[in-house]
């Protein structure tokens, strides 16, 4: 049997895997939706763009749903604190995430231009808002959220929605927007009609440069401008999941964990390198390679944020001792073990049939195909 410490580390890594899966798979859906009106200049072009994601967005969205379910089961404290603390932001996110499926499914079902134009705007909103909110949320992790627990483990949260918009969090939102815009445009460049590829490539390259700039500024800000959190009491991975049993101080900077684990720097280096690669491949018109590079950017960016926070998951600015770490915010050993077995069984299956579906759907969605087909169902 695996010990509790290892299981917690495994579930920390799996949390990363789920977020990366979500960012890569759902990320290009967000990008396509947000770029729909910019990239698609007429109805046919927009239908092409939509059809690149229509057969797959539902499966992609499950990365998000599964992420929610897995956080609930493996990190119940994180689920409870993050979602209730960020209440209004979560509500906006839900609205966006509900508009999107409906928009994808319904937009092409009627020919009326007003109907389609309204859905195009709705989809732009539904693609843009989650990008921004996820980035802002990650930025706030570094700043800490204002929560504390009482002895019943009931959480109180003292901030409001606008408190989330700290300049660093907004910058983090821009990192996210640039990253997923690059990702969505890269997807369009290899998946949509050739005639759209150049336009999509230009957007992707511009977004890749913006990503590099925002990401590096955010890194410098973290290194010099934002205080890190440190556990000062003895750390054990075998203890009960009770965040109040440790002592935490706010000191130094967030890169302390990177100094302790030099391998963590690889993620940051990879994020920068992959963004440059995306730019280079796109310039060379190697669209699929550029898409893979942008997927790598998504993965490396999330890893670098997770590594910098290690071992924290959700620091508390109100009462640092209440901060959630991977050692004291998980579910029980039994549950982590069971869920790990479930992951080992189902993840290979999911990846297998998802790959099969994508292989059936391989090839560009052409304008010719769109003009000759009856519509998007």
């Amino acid at each position, binding site marked *: 049997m695996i010990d509790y410490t290892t299981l917690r580390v495994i579930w920390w890594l799996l949390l990363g895997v789920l977020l990366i899966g979500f960012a890569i798979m759902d990320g290009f859906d967000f990008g396509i939706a947000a770029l729909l009106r910019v990239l698609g200049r007429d109805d046919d072009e927009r239908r092409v763009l939509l059809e690149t994601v229509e057969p797959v967005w539902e499966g992609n969205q499950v990365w998000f749903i599964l992420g929610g379910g897995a956080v609930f089961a493996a990190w119940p404290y994180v689920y409870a604190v993050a979602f209730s603390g960020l209440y209004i932001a979560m509500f906006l996110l839900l609205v966006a995430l509900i508009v999107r499926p409906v928009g994808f499914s*319904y937009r092409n079902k009627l020919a009326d231009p007003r109907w389609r134009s309204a859905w195009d705007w709705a989809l732009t909103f539904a693609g843009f808002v989650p990008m921004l909110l996820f980035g802002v949320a990650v930025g706030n992790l570094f700043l800490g959220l204002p929560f504390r627990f009482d002895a019943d483990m009931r959480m109180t949260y003292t901030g409001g929605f606008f408190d989330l918009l700290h300049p660093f969090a907004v910058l983090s939102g821009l990192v996210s927007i640039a990253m997923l815009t690059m990702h969505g445009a890269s997807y369009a460049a290899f998946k949509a009609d050739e005639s759209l590829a150049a336009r999509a490539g230009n957007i992707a390259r511009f977004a890749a440069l913006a990503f590099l700039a925002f990401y590096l500024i955010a890194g410098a800000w973290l290194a010099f401008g934002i205080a890190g959190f440190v556990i000062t009491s003895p750390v054990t991975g075998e203890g009960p999941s009770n965040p109040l049993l440790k002592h935490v101080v706010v000191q130094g900077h967030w890169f302390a964990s990177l100094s302790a684990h030099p391998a963590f720097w690889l993620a940051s280096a990879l994020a920068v390198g992959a963004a440059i690669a995306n730019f280079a491949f796109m310039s060379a018109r190697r669209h699929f390679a550029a898409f893979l590079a942008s997927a790598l950017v998504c993965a490396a960016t999330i890893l670098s944020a997770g590594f910098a926070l290690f071992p924290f998951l959700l620091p508390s600015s109100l009462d640092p001792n209440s901060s959630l770490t991977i050692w004291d915010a998980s579910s029980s050993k039994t549950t982590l073990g069971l869920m790990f077995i479930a992951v080992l069984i189902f993840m290979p299956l999911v990846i297998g049939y998802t790959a099969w579906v994508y292989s059936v759907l391989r090839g560009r969605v052409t304008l010719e195909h769109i003009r000759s087909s009856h519509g998007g169902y």
Partner: protein
Amino acid sequence: MMIDQELVTLSRLQFALTALYHFLFVPLTLGLSWLLAIMEAVYVMSGREIWKRMTQFWGLLFGINFAMGVATGVTMEFQFGTNWAYYAHYVGDVFGTPLAIEGAMAFFLEATFIGLFFFGWDRLGRVAHLIVTFLLALGTNLSALWILIANGWMQNPVGAEFNLDTMRMEVSSFSAVLFNPVAQSKFVHTVSAGYVLGSMFVLSISAWYLLRGRNIDLAKRSMTVAASFGLASALSVVVLGDESGYTVSENQKMKLAAIEAMWETEPAPAPFTAFGFPDLAERKTHFAVRIPWVMGIIGTRSLDGVLPGINELVEEAEQRIEKGRVAYAAMLKLRENRDDAAARAAFDANKADLGYALLLRNVVADPALASHADVQKAAVSTIPNVPVLFWSFRLMVGCGLYFIALFAYSFWLASRRELDTKRWYLKLALWSLPLPWLAAELGWIVAEYGRQPWAIEGVLPTALGVSSITSAQVLFSLCGFVIFYTSLAVIDATLMLKYVRRGPDGLGLWRDGQVPATGAAT
């Protein structure tokens, strides 16, 4: 700290509205997915084009509904965190697991294959496409299985224990959670209800085409499929609903007593109250019409089993609250000193009733200081809303019996090939369309409203489960959901009606533009 009851009410209202709304779409997905698989299987086996067209046409309506089901399901997955954060903390270790497995095992399956269902017709062989449709149906139904395992645990929280170190319930036996008898009977009852609803959808819309003299071959074949599948499902809903009544009587005696408005414990076998006006204040049922023996036989599967009445259950609750207070006091001592052996012994002896002590939190700030009157008040709060349950249940059962009759008659007509001969029957089938939705929503009310005041039966009162957010925030999101969901409902209904009106003949789905040849044998 007292619980903010306004926050609780608003949070419950939001949960109920979003859940009832989500449940408008889910049963249709459950039922229609199998009907599509059946129609396509006939196509693959017989090679007759009309069956492919049936699959595609009903598939189109399926898609409109599916998007809404997926979209509104997102809210459900996250609402436990946003609005029920203490619930999420308190039982996440147990309750989160089935939700996560649902995502990995079931939702991934259905969501990945729905795309190929629509976009795979030209890219896949017949058999491969049929497999895709089958996996889609399997995925939606497995999804229901895991959700109902989670819900079954709320009704009958087996295989879990309270952990003092973490202040929450933790899994002690996952197989007990998995094979919870309540979850199993709820699963079959719920999916069968979905199958009835899907069958009614196909039956009613086909009846409308026959009334209009349109798409006759397609409509008749669709009705035949719906009548057979619907009859089997309607029978199964009632039989398995009875089974779920039996399992309820084992662990939720109060819910059963409330459904039956059974105030006093009756001598066995207890009578069934077919009609009456339950009065919560006076604790009696006016104008009760009673059928001897029936309740005792359904509820206990015997002639001598006794079903306790509400008044007796309130007294029982009072005793459990007193025992729970002992556990609660011991818990506070143990928090100060982990090694207090006397407190440990008192806690272990009474921890099964800890949840009952938490009921006092609705009545007094500190359960340790509760008076006898407070305890009585908390005990009375375990009575759910009897009149609502009594009538919801009877209406639901009435619908269920009507469905059996309607589908049986449809099946008889179909087997005699007389489906299009009786206009009154076609009108009846058309106007029966809303009834399965009504029955499904009433079923939700009986199961979940009847669980009150508990979020987790006997473990966690609903009021304690709320997030530490403000009423204003919930009011904001509640209004947001009402406006947003209403607009979506209008859009969904508009689109659905437009597609039904245009019909298989008017949608231009098939490039040859021909109405399928008439007279072909099924």
